């Protein structure tokens, strides 16, 4: 096994960055963003709250309340920045790690836990939030997003779809097919790849010999690499890509260059395949600390503000925990629900047989 201990130590030159890890606002010739103090405070609050939800979910898993959890730690800026670029009419297609995007779309965090607690496969109505269900099989949702975008095209709607996937997913056939479809149909879709450097234990070199954003040119649309730990840059780049899509300029591939600071999931042990110095290097680029530093320096936020956000986060964590524990187990016969929209005689017969079997236990044993 080879480990590149310098991974992430230097910012790649092509990177779009508007806020340095030290909290300095910098200019970029192609992208800029004009945010009010209120908007910046709102972004900071988003970042802190989703990290808190994530932390609570990890703790719930450790205590046996969730079967598994996929932590977003380190990817908050990529998700909040892109998520806040969406309009209500846009449609988002997530992986299973997009808790921050879900937050931006107004999905109750507790509803994200159902899948991981094992009480359902997805506990929200995608149409209510224009936020599709989590997709577990890697890359499948990219095609759904492109098809949805083709529907937007046919409707003549002022909207776009955005699809989230990781660096590992770029090796999937479906993702490459999605690139082709989006390109030839000029579909209003944004491909948002969070390159968090690791597909479980496999580093990016196992997926690609070139920077991921450069793949786009081979498919005939623009690709851009953005500092995935810079919420301002992620917002600016995604906003522009969505605007281009809505205006008929077709797809964009955004590679958000970030880092999975936690394990792949709570079942994973990253100490088996990556070195501690790498994590330490990325901690210096934390997506939240740089915003806080900038806000302090520019007097957009004072200690009272930060304390208030922390208190809100603590309340949210408690609330998520409480309502997670209150989530009821589904009733056995719910196995048979929603398999089909229309009645199915064979399935109804199986259900009745199982119901009758269960009834033999009532009052018995």
């Amino acid at each position, binding site marked *: 096994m080879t480990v590149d201990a310098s991974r992430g130590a230097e910012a790649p030159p092509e990177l779009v960055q508007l806020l340095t890890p030290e909290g300095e606002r910098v200019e970029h010739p192609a992208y800029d963003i004009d945010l009010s103090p209120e908007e910046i405070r709102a972004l900071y609050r988003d970042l802190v709250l989703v990290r808190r939800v994530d932390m609570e979910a990890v703790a719930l898993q450790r205590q046996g309340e969730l079967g598994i959890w996929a932590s977003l730690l380190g990817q908050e800026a990529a998700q909040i920045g892109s998520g806040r670029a969406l309009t209500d009419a846009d449609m988002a297609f997530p992986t299973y790690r997009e808790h921050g995007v879900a937050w931006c779309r107004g999905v109750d965090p507790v509803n994200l836990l159902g899948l991981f607690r094992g009480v*359902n*496969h*997805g*506990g929200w*109505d*995608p*149409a209510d939030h224009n936020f*599709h*269900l989590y*997709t577990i*099989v890697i890359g*499948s949702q*990219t*095609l*759904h*997003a*492109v*098809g*949805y*975008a*083709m*529907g*937007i*095209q*046919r*409707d003549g709607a002022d909207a776009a*779809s955005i699809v989230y996937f990781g660096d590992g997913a770029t090796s999937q*056939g*479906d993702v490459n*097919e*999605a690139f*082709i*479809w989006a390109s*030839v149909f000029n579909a209003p879709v944004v491909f948002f790849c969070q390159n968090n450097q690791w597909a479980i234990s496999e580093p990016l070199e196992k997926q690609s010999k070139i920077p991921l954003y450069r793949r786009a040119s081979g498919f005939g649309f623009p690709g851009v690499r953005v500092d995935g730990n810079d919420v301002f840059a992620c917002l600016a780049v995604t906003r522009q890509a969505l605007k281009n899509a809505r205006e008929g300029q077709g797809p964009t591939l955004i590679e958000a260059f970030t880092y999975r600071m936690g394990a792949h999931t709570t079942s994973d042990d990253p100490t088996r395949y990556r070195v501690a110095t790498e994590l330490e290097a990325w901690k210096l680029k934390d997506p939240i600390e740089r915003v806080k530093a900038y806000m302090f320096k520019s007097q957009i936020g004072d200690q009272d503000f930060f304390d208030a956000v922390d208190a809100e986060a603590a309340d949210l964590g408690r609330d998520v925990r409480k309502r997670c524990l209150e989530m009821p187990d589904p009733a056995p016969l719910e196995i048979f*629900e*929603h*398999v*089909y*929209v*229309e009645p*199915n*005689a*064979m*399935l109804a017969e199986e259900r009745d047989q199982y119901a009758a079997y269960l009834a033999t236990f009532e009052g018995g044993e």
Partner: protein
Amino acid sequence: MSTLTLAKALNDGLRAAMEDDPKVLIMGEDVGKLGGVFRVTDGLYKDFGDSRVIDTPLAESGIIGTAIGLALRGYRPVCEIQFDGFVFPAADQIITQLAKMPLRSLGKLRLPVVVRIPCGGGIGAVEHHSESPEAYFTHTAGLRVVACSNPADAYHMIQQAIRCEDPVIFFEPKRRYWDKAVVDKAAEALPMHRGVVARPGTDVTVLAYGPMVKTCLEAATAAAEEGRSLEVVDLRSLSPLDTDLIFESVRKTGRCVVAHEAPVNSGLGAEIAARVTEACFYNLEAPVLRAGGFSTPYPPSRLEDDYLPDLDRVLDAVDRTFAF
């Protein structure tokens, strides 16, 4: 009333569905200007345009995956998989995504997508063009699977499949595409998941679907000359099965043969045999027998007459049910 080939009946059915509902789309490889390699979509591109008849890139997973997205946006895509053996690149999208979306969303999402698959052998094709993959899909919860055997059913069933709120795998018997029959378009159609007695009889129930229905009807004619009465049931629906009709027939005849082109091992016939045995045990004079393909890959076409169950193999199975 008009006399149509099965392919033309499908074409007319698709056209009627597109006229009825502007959300109905056709997608697939070569379905546009060419009208499909079997011409099932002939003329639709010209009349409905490229926003409703979509020539797709050559990638089957992409066809089904984008159809799912279009369905999520409110469209009703009808996808053509060019040949049976090409459905496997799309199997992940069909089995993992298409079949499971209503359940995963607790009933909030529905995917009214039709996947048309020309199936079966008998046309002298090269490999991967003659397969019968229905059992993979009947084994998958969340899908509905149907097979038409004649022009009238083709016309009505394709429209029913398009109107269905669940995903439907729609098998078309490619060696019967050019068979002609009278189609009464105004007739009230049988519900999509009902089978039909294609020929009544008293001695043996022969269950078939798709391309094998015609073979079994010919077998019944031949058997009649020898004084044996076969009841041929066209299943039409493979998932769910019309078990009421199947059991009713078997209870009457006491004997049952299932015929399909697919390999018998773990095929649909095995499922039917198990269900018939369970439901009709005391009516059976003999075990349920199967006439089907061998447990081999589909052979080179010069051998397909040996592989495909023909009239004589069906009658051989019928004979064997009298040997118990």
